[in-house]
C-alpha cells in the first residue's frame, strides 16, 4: 500500500495523546457530529425561529443556552480538525479535488453510496449519542460501557454487511 502514510501504530499513539490532551484540558473526548448538530440548530434558529422554539428537540436541548449554539467546544474542535487535515494534506501533497473510487465503480454510484452512508451515519450518531470518535473512541478511553457497546455495534455491523457491498470496494 501507500508508503507515504504514517505508520499506523505511531499514528495511533499520536491520536491517543491528542485524546488524552482533550480529556486533560476539557474533561471530554473528541467528537465530530456534535458540531454538526449545533450548526443545524443554529441554522434552524436563523431560518425558522418560531419552529426552533416549538420543536421538541431544540427546545429541550438548547433552551438553556443563551449564546449561539455554534459557540461550542465541539464546533471549535471541528474547525481545528478541518484545518489539521488540510495542513497534513498540504505537507504530504495529497490535496486534490477528486472522487476517490475503485476503477470499476462509477463516480455517480460512489457519490450515491456516500450520500446514503452519510444519512445513515448522521441519523445513527444521534440515536446512539455519538459517532465513532465521540462515543466509541472517546468512550473506550474512559472505559465507558456505552462506548464499548457502540464500538462493537458499529464494527460488527460493518463487518456483517461487508459482503453485501463488496462490489463497491473490492
Amino acid at each position: 500500500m501507500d508508503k507515504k502514510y504514517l505508520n499506523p501504530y505511531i499514528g495511533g499513539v499520536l491520536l491517543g495523546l491528542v485524546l488524552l490532551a482533550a480529556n486533560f484540558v476539557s474533561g471530554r473526548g473528541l467528537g465530530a457530529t456534535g458540531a454538526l448538530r449545533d450548526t443545524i440548530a443554529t441554522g434552524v434558529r436563523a431560518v425558522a425561529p418560531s419552529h426552533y422554539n416549538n420543536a421538541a428537540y431544540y427546545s429541550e436541548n438548547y433552551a438553556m443556552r443563551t449564546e449561539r449554539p455554534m459557540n461550542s467546544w465541539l464546533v471549535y474542535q471541528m474547525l481545528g480538525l478541518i484545518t489539521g487535515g488540510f495542513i497534513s494534506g498540504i505537507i504530504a501533497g495529497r490535496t486534490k479535488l477528486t472522487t476517490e473510487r475503485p476503477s470499476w465503480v462509477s463516480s455517480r454510484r460512489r457519490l450515491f453510496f456516500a450520500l446514503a452512508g452519510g444519512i445513515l451515519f448522521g441519523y445513527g450518531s444521534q440515536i446512539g449519542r455519538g459517532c465513532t470518535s465521540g462515543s466509541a473512541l472517546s468512550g473506550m478511553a474512559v472505559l465507558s460501557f456505552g462506548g464499548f457497546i457502540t464500538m462493537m455495534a458499529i464494527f460488527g455491523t460493518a463487518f456483517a454487511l461487508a459482503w453485501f457491498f463488496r462490489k463497491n470496494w473490492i
Partner: protein
Amino acid sequence: MQKINPRILLAIILIPMGLIIAMVPEDMTGSRKVSTEQILQEIASGSQFVSPDEIAGMIVENNPVLQLIDVRSSNEFENFSLPGAVNIPLTAILSPEWRDILDQDVKINVFYSNGSVHANEAWILTRQQGYLNNYVLQGGLNYWMEAIANPDPPSDLSPDEEFARYDFRRAVNSALGGEAVERAAEAPPPPAMPAIRPRERTPVVQGGC
C-alpha cells in the same frame, strides 16, 4: 542497525504499563454509594448549601448549568416557583423517572423548599445514592423572598460591599420582574457582582459527539 518494528516497541512500552496499572490498588471504589460518615462530614461542613445571591446571579446570567429543583408538592409548585425550576416532590425524589436529572455531571442542581429542611432531605437521599452536583438553596424560599425579593436597604454606615450587594439584589429583582416569578426576556447584567466563592466542583461540560 535495523529499525525496530513500531508494534513491538509499542508492546514493550504499553504491556508493562498495563501491568503496573493492574497491580496498583484501585483508587476509586467500584461502588458509588457514599458512606454515612462522609455524608455526615459534608453536612457538618455545610458544603451542600448555596446562597440565594449565588443562585440569583446565575438566574440573571441565564447560566445554562443551573437547574433549580422544587421539592415541594405539585400544588405549591403551581402556586409559586422560581424561574426555570422543575418540580420533583420529595416523595418521588428517588423514583427512576428523575434519575436522569439527579444523577448527572452536566448541571448544578439546586434543591429548594419553603425552608431548608425538605431540600436538605432531598440532598441527603440523593447523596446516599452517590449522586454529585446537587446542592441546597440556603434558607429556602422564605429566605429568598427576604433576601432577594425584598432586600432591606443598607444603612448609610455599611461598607461598600453591602451597597454593592443591595444594588445587585435590586438588579436581580428587576431582572426577575419584581416578584421573582417570571424570567425576564432580556435580563440586564447586574451592576456589581457579589463575591462568589469558587466552587470546589464545577460540573463537567456535556461531551458527546
